[in-house]
């Protein structure tokens, strides 16, 4: 039974699929799927985008109940054009991206070593993991009041919220990654005369790199969610705020423009992380 008997990870981590066999193929399947999507996009993707737009046009035109308030694609495009031309639009992009990267990078800098430490020393994990597991299920957005209360400036509290969004995910993934490194690799290294520091830098770290990348990719998805909520509730500027203000002014096409921009920004940053992952792991590339 090729089960990895290690790690009491029975509570399912946020992002990592649970312990049974499919988890091993998760990364590979997503890669296969991503590849399939990519060439599909060029060929058929364009066709179905057209269908999507046609559907949208039809739905609004025919005044389907509730959906008749939706703007026409044309209106959204127009409002998109004006927005793109305006300086404010790009300022919001810049602010949102900056908030994401500060919070996200901070979460990795603190989360990765913590996850590694938990994975390596059983004692440390004994102390810290139960506490970690109590705080983890608390939805990041529930931290907003405390964040605003504690941090002196608004930007700092938004950075903190983004940090919370990515922190728990990266720690769980790194922990999973370190505990899944097969014992024969560690034994082989120690037989070959590797000292503890060699084992850490040349075995444990590279060995858990795939999980670190998974944690970052999934973490990026969550942080955008958290950022949008934080901006809508407590933010000043940023894509989330712009979308919210479009709502308060009743400018529906601008809302859709905001949504599309957020979607695009989220996609671009996830692709950036995936690209970084590909660069960092030459051995992992499809052969």
């Amino acid at each position, binding site marked *: *039974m090729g*089960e990895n008997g290690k790690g009491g990870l029975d*509570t*399912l981590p*946020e992002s990592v*699929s*649970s*312990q*049974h*066999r*499919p988890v091993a193929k998760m990364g590979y*399947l*997503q890669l*296969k*799927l991503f590849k399939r*999507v990519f060439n*599909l996009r060029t060929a058929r*993707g364009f066709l*179905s*985008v057209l*269908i*999507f737009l046609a559907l949208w046009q039809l739905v609004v035109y025919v005044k389907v109940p*509730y959906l008749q308030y*939706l703007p026409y694609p044309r209106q959204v495009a127009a409002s998109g054009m004006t927005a793109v031309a305006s300086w404010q639009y790009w300022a919001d992009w810049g602010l949102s991206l900056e908030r994401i990267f500060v919070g996200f990078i901070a979460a990795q800098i603190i989360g990765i070593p913590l996850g590694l430490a938990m994975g390596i020393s059983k*004692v440390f994990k*004994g*102390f810290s*993991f*139960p*506490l970690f597991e*109590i705080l983890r*299920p*608390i*939805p990041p*957005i*529930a931290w*907003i*009041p*405390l964040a605003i*209360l*504690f*941090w*002196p400036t608004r930007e700092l509290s938004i950075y903190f919220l983004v940090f919370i969004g990515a922190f728990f995910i990266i720690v769980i993934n790194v922990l999973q990654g370190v505990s899944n490194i097969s014992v024969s690799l560690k034994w082989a290294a120690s037989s070959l005369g590797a000292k503890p520091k060699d084992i850490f830098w040349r075995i444990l770290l590279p060995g858990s790199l795939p999980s670190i990348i998974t944690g970052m990719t999934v973490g990026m998805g969550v942080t*955008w*969610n958290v950022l*949008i*909520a934080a901006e*809508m*509730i407590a933010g000043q500027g940023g894509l*989330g705020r712009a*979308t919210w203000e479009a*709502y308060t002014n009743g400018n529906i096409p601008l*809302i*859709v423009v*905001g*949504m599309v921009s*957020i*979607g*695009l920004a*989220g996609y671009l940053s996830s692709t950036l992380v995936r690209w970084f992952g590909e660069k960092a792991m030459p051995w992992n590339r499809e052969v």
Partner: protein
Amino acid sequence: MANRLKTALLNPQFYRAMTGIVLFLVLWQLLTGVLDLPRFKLLPNPISVIKEWFSFEPLSGRSLFTQEYYLDIAYSVVRVLIAFSLATVLGVGLGLIMGWNRIFYEFTFPIVEILRPMPPLSWIPLAVLVLPGVEVAVVYVTFIAGFFATVLNTLLGVYSIDKKYFLAARCLGSKPRHIFRNVVVPGALPFIFTGLQISMGVSWMSLVAGEIISGQRGLGYAIYEGYSMFQYNQVVCYMFTLGILGFISSAGIRAVGRKLMAWEASRRGA
């Protein structure tokens, strides 16, 4: 059950866990209650939080013994359950059909792939405006969050099934409908339950945001209301309540998963 408790009490892990938590509480109390540190003293300290949570006449009107508290929980739990079950039924259904039928996949997947990166919470403004009433908007946003996670994982589940099971089923004379019922659905179950776990987690997150932004009753709203009325103890109580509810719901999914996939347990137990 008894001997499991006994072994739990004996092994050192249990004591380390306890010390870890107690240390955290002591530190928290020190930083916020005892010492007079600039930012920290604004935060509620553990003792006041616990006092509030267990008191009979809480200042904020919400504690374990007040009806309000359970009303808030009920609102949120009902919304999550509606959204989660919708996301499960539609997500698993769509995912299975997409994985099973090539043509259906060709057209639906790109659309799913376009909408998926859109953070669920960015739907709030549109949902509140377009959908009838705020309640539907909050449930919709929670549904969207869970839906995409379920579809993707169900799809991955169908792809993870080894080709030999399809061939074996055809050899044994199965018609397509047999193959769908006896190979595709059971084969994809492990991944489906992975998706459900993630979907539950994301649903709770979107629900809280939805409630805070759209100003409707429920745990999320109560947290924000607590903040605006300076009842910070209530904010922390509700954060932990959310944590507990999140834990219970994912434990529930795991239990259902174990029962449905009895053969999985035998693999892990073997």
